């Protein structure tokens, strides 16, 4: 029993980390229908800049804020320079953002050096609780909480507020929203910036969890993010959350019971889902 509870907590924490990363992907890929392979680059930039600020100021909060800022600024640059010329053309999007991904992750090596940087958990969140025989690591609980908060906030904004309404309407029919007098270009720019900031947030929260950050981690985690969005269904926030938790739990249980399959489990889930239900587990009807 204790074993299963620990496995569930581990799986939830991993799932939430994946969700934080995928939350940005859902916005950009799921809603705006832009395939941004540079997402991993934004993730790494968030991790490095946040950890750099954390090391300089000794405050994890400032690190998170800096990461969000970096993400938003990079998101602005990416949207203006890279995405604008290729809206609506998936193949071009894949190709160009892949190029930008290379530039971003190589720039990391130029600025921060090619070697990995070790990261420690902030003192407030370090350590663990013991409940009976179960050891609960505090940072994992923090991540689970952060994931649910982000989910709640975005779910609320997208479904209950006017901004969410405009975004959803813009996704369905760009021209129509434009005709109603809303500058949809600017709205999409903001959405992209928020998505990029979420990627950076994922990066900086991931850093203390994995204990070390390196330039190549971007691509690895970006793939995970895409897998989760595809499994969950395009544009469905709840689907993404569900898929992230599913992938996290599957990974954590597989790692214990069938260790040699643990690396492959995400891919296997995605292959199964895509072959039998190509539209994803949860789908939003689109006009």
């Amino acid at each position, binding site marked *: 029993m204790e074993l299963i509870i620990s496995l569930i907590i581990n799986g939830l924490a991993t799932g939430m980390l994946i969700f934080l990363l995928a939350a940005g992907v859902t916005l950009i890929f799921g809603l705006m229908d832009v*395939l941004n392979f540079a997402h991993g680059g934004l993730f790494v930039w968030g991790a490095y800049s946040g950890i750099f600020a954390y090391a300089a100021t000794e405050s994890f909060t400032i690190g998170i804020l800096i990461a969000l800022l970096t993400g938003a600024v990079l998101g602005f640059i990416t949207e203006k320079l*890279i995405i604008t*010329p*290729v809206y609506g053309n*998936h*193949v*071009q999007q*894949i*190709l*160009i953002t*892949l*190029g*930008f991904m*290379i*530039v971003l992750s*190589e*720039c990391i*090596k*130029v600025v921060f050096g090619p070697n990995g940087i070790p990261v420690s958990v902030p003192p407030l969140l370090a350590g663990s609780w013991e409940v009976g025989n179960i050891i609960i690591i505090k940072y994992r609980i923090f991540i689970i909480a952060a994931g649910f908060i982000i989910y709640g906030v975005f779910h609320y904004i997208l479904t209950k507020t006017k901004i969410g309404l405009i975004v959803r309407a813009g996704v369905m029919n760009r021209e129509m929203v434009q005709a109603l007098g809303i500058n949809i270009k600017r709205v999409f720019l903001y959405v992209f910036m928020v998505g990029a900031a979420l990627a950076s947030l994922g990066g900086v929260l991931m850093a203390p969890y994995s204990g070390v950050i390196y330039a190549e981690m971007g*691509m690895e985690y970006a*793939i995970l993010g*895409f*897998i989760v969005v*595809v499994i969950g269904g395009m544009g469905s926030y709840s689907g993404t959350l569900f898929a992230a938790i599913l992938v996290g739990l599957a990974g954590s249980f597989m790692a214990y019971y069938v260790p*040699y399959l643990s*690396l*492959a489990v*995400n*891919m*296997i889930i*995605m*292959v199964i889902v*895509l*072959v039998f239900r*190509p539209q994803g587990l949860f789908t939003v009807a689109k006009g």
Partner: protein
Amino acid sequence: MKRQSIFTTSNTVFCVMAVILAIVPFVSDSRTTLILLTQIFIFGILAMSYDMLLGYTGIVSFGHAMFFGIGAYTSAIMLNMYESTMAIFTISIAVGMLLSAVLSFFVGLLTLRLKSHYYAMLTLAISGLVLVVAEKWRTMTKGNDGFTFRAPEFFRDRMMFYLFALACLIVIYIIFKRFVGSPLGRVLIAVRENEQRTASLGYKTLHYKVIASVLAGVVASLAGSLYAVSLRFVNTSVMSMDITLDALLMTIIGGVGTLIGPLLGAAVIEFAQHYLSGLARDYPIFERWIIIFGIIYILAVIFFPRGIVGTLSQKLGEWKMKRKTAAVEETFQKVPPPGIADESGEWK
């Protein structure tokens, strides 16, 4: 229709190029040049096979490295387990091709029904799976450490291997050229241009796409076999994303939808890689030369989506067109025909 003679200008140019490349090892003593050119031939084959997917059928695959890796590992393992003779090497190429064909057939059948970006991601995931298998199956592949093996006696001489790679390149080029011009190749181009229309004309587009993916996989496997023998060493990096990215870059920079483009792209990138990493010894700034590539690549996608060859042939076409219209106009100015051309000069 008039049957075209084989001795067109472009064919003559290719023959002359092939002869010059075949003479190079007898004239030049430089080992580095020979190795570099061999690399270009091998990656040229890979890039051409990638272009079969990206340029001719319009499929973005992120899993091309797995076929390259299968070829490399098949050859390496067979040469290591049995004796290193030419016969074994030939058989290993065939076995690698067969494995790639079977794998690409099933992957294609399962995934090509999906939309382009799902396909891209699924191939990425499947090649990730294959990479994990290669890393975990240590008894066979020795994991990430890799292993060295002896190349066949005949290839100990670099020059022989150079000529062999060149011969492979030429054969593959001719096969592809014939394939693209064949009715089958035409259907593939139609799929790229407008898949729905091709389907409504009665072609089963899925079948054609699977054929393209099998062909590309088989040829990529050949490139992998050659690559393993040229290094006499193999590890899991042959299956990594970098190989796919290289093929993608070469195709895009050289020119999608042309056969000579990927070859040119392979040459440009291998040369640049060689010289820029040579420069890095003196100027540390060039250590991160990949950035320069990334930037060039982005600019190429935005401004020259047709690549070097595509842009050049477009310019050439425009120039020819202009000369033709100028000549026609000249004739018409002598005898102005009333009512054929309107004021703007456009033909009715």
